[in-house]
């Protein structure tokens, strides 16, 4: 009997032991020994687990046995695993390490400005462009309130860090835009061909940019269009200068958007005349269509088509050189097609394929003499393929191939129909790049990449390496970048068919530091650029013996003062440049470069009036120019540039927005330089005329009406 009881007891004990619950317990803390409540602790492969209490303690029972893996995870910390016999998993002390940003999450901001975006605000607000005092709703106008850009007021194009405008190239969705600016009359600033409302991201890179891009000695402006729209809308807009309308039709997974705009300055010129005489005032008709579609869960296809025609006839009286009055006639057609496909495979490879085609045809009459004619046709086909993969938490590889096929032909017939110029240029350029991004250790990232290019016209290969080291810790970033960039000489030089031999190149050295705290950003950058191979005209022939250098400092401060509802941006640039290129006689400061550039932008919201006010004050030191009455070359400096611009936007109702702006409120006559007569006068002096804007001040008022929309204040057609 005793034996049976013992046996029964032993068997029961056996049962209990085998079905026994094992207690798992411990405490979870961070690296500073502070308790971590709410951490998730569990046995891998089961639902057995618990959350830590306010003291960081956890306790639960498990029916597993043998060797198990205990997983501890907590939001904001790296997941911790501990492999051991389940009987040893008691009284544990687990220290959790803070989560570090992965390669996909860090954004290096050295020499880059993303409009309206910041570390905390991921999305660009197109209104940031429109509400910048001096912009007039133009992307390039808004970019000029950023440091590193130099004011060339009569032109309005982008000039970056002592570089010519052609050294800055624009890209949309990774594809090149050959003609990003509208055509205008002389001394009338250009605008971007594209409305800021097309884009979800505008990121200006002032130098040291990614190896993905090339053929831009100074800077690149990559812009990303928005994703497929999800609601249908229609809107119209009108101003004394223009009338337009457009809209989007949206399906579940795709959308089609279109926009048409007609601009005619004749009505406006009657009220606010400019310095010119017009036979046929400036007019342009522009239309664009964009299809954006989501193919499957991981692919996006976009197709953009833009067409515009610009025409005007301006009566030119050249009293400097006493040439007969002529009616300068311009007619320009411009086409741009951009098609991109992006997808992500199951193995997380990002693939991209894109093509873009730019075409412009210009027909000018009476350009220098009455009865002459100048025609210019230029086109470019750009094809690009990219692949990207995060290999591990510490390494990301990107690579791609691209081809640029360009054609440019010009003819000039004088008033006797003699063909004085017949240029034809075909140039094909092929490139490939490889980009390696590394995470070296906590907060330290590095990038080593290279780009290889082959220029068919110059029959030259080049290798463009780029290295960067970045320290990123929350709001603080410090970077050092070294890179070499190439660009073929401009067409004017290549038309000569002289033996050029090599592309132009520029070495960038950049040191950058930035700090962001609670929405306030402070950024300071030092840079040095060394140019080589620039097109130089000597003894009536072009060579690549030109050179130059540019160095300077860019500083930027932006923030918001909440009680005052005031947003401010302060930018200052110092640039010291010298070049020997083009038709320069000696090494000089280039005509487009100014030593000091500064701008202060304020944006104030007035909820009571449902209005926004934008004010920008811009300053630039005097532009260099060449005075033939004095000895030397580029020997003089024009007066300083000052301009106070402002705009006001009124949200009249859910569907109507009124926008108004005035440039140069103080009415200063800004002089950008002087043009001199070709011959001396009777006293042996060259006469001159100042280069000024055709309009001293520009007044604008426009009304934007949304006829159908799901949301409010949605006046963009896209």
């Amino acid at each position: 009997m005793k034996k049976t009881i013992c046996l029964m007891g032993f068997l029961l004990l056996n049962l209990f032991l085998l079905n026994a619950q094992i207690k798992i317990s411990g405490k979870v803390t961070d690296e500073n020994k502070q308790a971590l409540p709410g951490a998730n602790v569990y046995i891998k492969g089961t639902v057995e687990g618990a959350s830590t209490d306010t003291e960081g303690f956890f306790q639960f029972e498990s029916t597993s046995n043998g060797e198990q893996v205990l997983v501890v995870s907590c939001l904001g910390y790296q997941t911790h695993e501990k492999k051991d016999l389940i009987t040893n998993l008691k009284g544990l002390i687990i220290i959790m390490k803070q989560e570090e940003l992965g390669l996909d999450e860090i954004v290096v901001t050295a020499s880059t400005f993303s409009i309206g975006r910041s570390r905390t605000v991921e999305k660009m607000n197109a209104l940031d462009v429109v509400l910048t005092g001096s912009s007039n709703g133009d992307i390039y106008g808004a970019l000029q309130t950023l440091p590193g850009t130099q004011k060339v007021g009569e032109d309005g194009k982008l000039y970056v860090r002592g570089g010519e405008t052609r050294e800055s190239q624009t890209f949309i969705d990774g594809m090149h835009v050959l003609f990003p600016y509208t055509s205008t009359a002389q001394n009338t600033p250009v605008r971007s061909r594209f409305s800021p409302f097309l884009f979800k991201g505008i990121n200006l890179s002032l130098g040291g940019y990614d190896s993905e891009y090339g053929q831009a000695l100074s800077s690149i402006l990559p812009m990303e269009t928005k994703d497929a729209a999800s609601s249908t809308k229609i809107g119209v807009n009108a101003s004394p200068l223009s009338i337009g309308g457009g809209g989007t039709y949206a399906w579940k997974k795709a959308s089609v958007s279109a926009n048409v705009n007609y601009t005619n300055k004749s009505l406006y010129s009657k009220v606010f005349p400019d310095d010119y005489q017009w036979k046929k005032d400036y007019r342009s008709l522009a239309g664009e269509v964009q299809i954006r579609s989501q193919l499957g869960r991981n692919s996006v296809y976009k197709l953009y088509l833009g067409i515009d025609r610009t025409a005007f006839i301006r009566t030119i009286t050249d009293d400097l050189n006493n040439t007969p009055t002529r009616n300068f006639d311009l007619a320009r057609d411009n086409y741009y097609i951009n098609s991109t496909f992006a997808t992500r495979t199951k193995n997380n490879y990002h693939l991209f394929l894109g093509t873009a085609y730019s075409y412009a045809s210009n027909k000018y009459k009476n350009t220098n003499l009455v009865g002459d004619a100048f025609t210019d046709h230029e086109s470019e086909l750009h094809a690009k393929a990219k692949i990207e993969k995060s290999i591990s938490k510490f390494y990301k590889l990107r690579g791609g191939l691209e081809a640029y096929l360009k054609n440019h032909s010009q003819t000039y017939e004088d008033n006797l129909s003699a063909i004085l110029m017949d240029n034809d240029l075909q140039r094909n350029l092929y490139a490939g790049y490889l980009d390696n991004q590394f995470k070296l250790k906590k907060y330290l990232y590095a990038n080593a990449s290279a780009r290889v290019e082959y220029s068919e016209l110059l029959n030259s290969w080049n290798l463009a390496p780029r290295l960067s080291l970045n320290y990123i810790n929350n709001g603080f970033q410090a970077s050092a970048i070294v890179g070499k960039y190439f660009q073929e000489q401009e067409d004017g030089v290549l038309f000569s068919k002289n033996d050029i031999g090599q592309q132009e190149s520029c070495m960038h050295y950049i040191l950058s530091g930035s700090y962001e705290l609670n929405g306030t950003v402070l950024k300071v950058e030092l840079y040095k650029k060394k140019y080589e191979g620039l097109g130089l005209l000597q003894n009536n022939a072009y060579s690549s013996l030109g050179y130059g250098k540019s160095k300077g400092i860019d500083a930027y401060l932006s923030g918001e003062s909440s009680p005052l509802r005031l947003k401010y941006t302060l930018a200052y640039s110092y640039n010291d440049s010298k070049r020997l290129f083009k038709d320069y006689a000696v090494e000089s400061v280039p005509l487009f470069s100014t030593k000091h550039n500064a701008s202060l932008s304020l944006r104030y919201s007035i909820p009571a009036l449902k209005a926004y006010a934008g004010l920008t004050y811009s300053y630039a030191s005097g532009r260099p120019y060449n005075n033939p009455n004095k000895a030397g070359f580029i020997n003089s400096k024009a007066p300083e540039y000052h301009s106070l611009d402002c705009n006001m936007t009124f949200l009249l109702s859910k569907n109507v927005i009124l926008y108004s702006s005035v440039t140069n409120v103080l009415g200063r006559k800004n002089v950008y330089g002087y043009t001199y007569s070709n011959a001396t006068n009777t006293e042996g002096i060259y006469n001159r005329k100042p280069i000024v804007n055709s309009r001293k001040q520009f007044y604008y008022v426009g009304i934007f009406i949304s006829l159908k929309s799901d949301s409010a204040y949605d006046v963009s057609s896209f």
Partner: protein
Amino acid sequence: MKKLCVVLVFMVMLLNQALCTNQIATNENTKSEFYQILGSSLSKLSTAQNEADLLSVVNEIKRLETMFPDEWLTTYYIAFLDLKASFSAPIEKQEVLLKEALLKIENLKQNKSANLSEVYTLEGYYYLAIIAQNPAQNGQIYYKEVISAYSKAIAYNGENPRPVLLLTLFKNRMAQFTGADQSSFCEDLKKIELMFSTFTPKTKLDPNWGEQQLKTAQQNCPSQE
């Protein structure tokens, strides 16, 4: 007697083995097991007293998610509860909660079995949470994303009352700034009340929330019979 004992011992051993394998069998993936565990976790939500209790439920669902990675409901509820928590969480916690919620929503879009109407409703709710972080600054940047996400959710399933309710409530809040006509607000809420009553979720655990928010919004409406 000894033989009987030996046989008994063997049988008990075998029984133990069988019981052990039974234990292992309960760890095998079965759909009913999944619903049972998820159901028990979700039922704890109504009795949760504080943040810690809610967090404990989320952690339970996360453990279930690691065991059943192909199921969309676990991912959905983690994102939903993270977003709800972000509205009242301290600033430091908000960032990590929203980051995880966004990651879960991206995962849901990849999951073929997920109900896209509910996923896009959740995406709209995510942008609403972003706006709540700093309404003065974020409202004007993200309001279009909120409306766009809810509109997509309605396009995927016009009978889903949740996006319709959230969109109506959002437009009502916006109307305080835009001055849009809100005279039909109570009527719209009544229609949504009808939608909720006629809506049947695909499974017992599919998203079925929102009536509480509807009732709160209807408090200022005249009661109708």
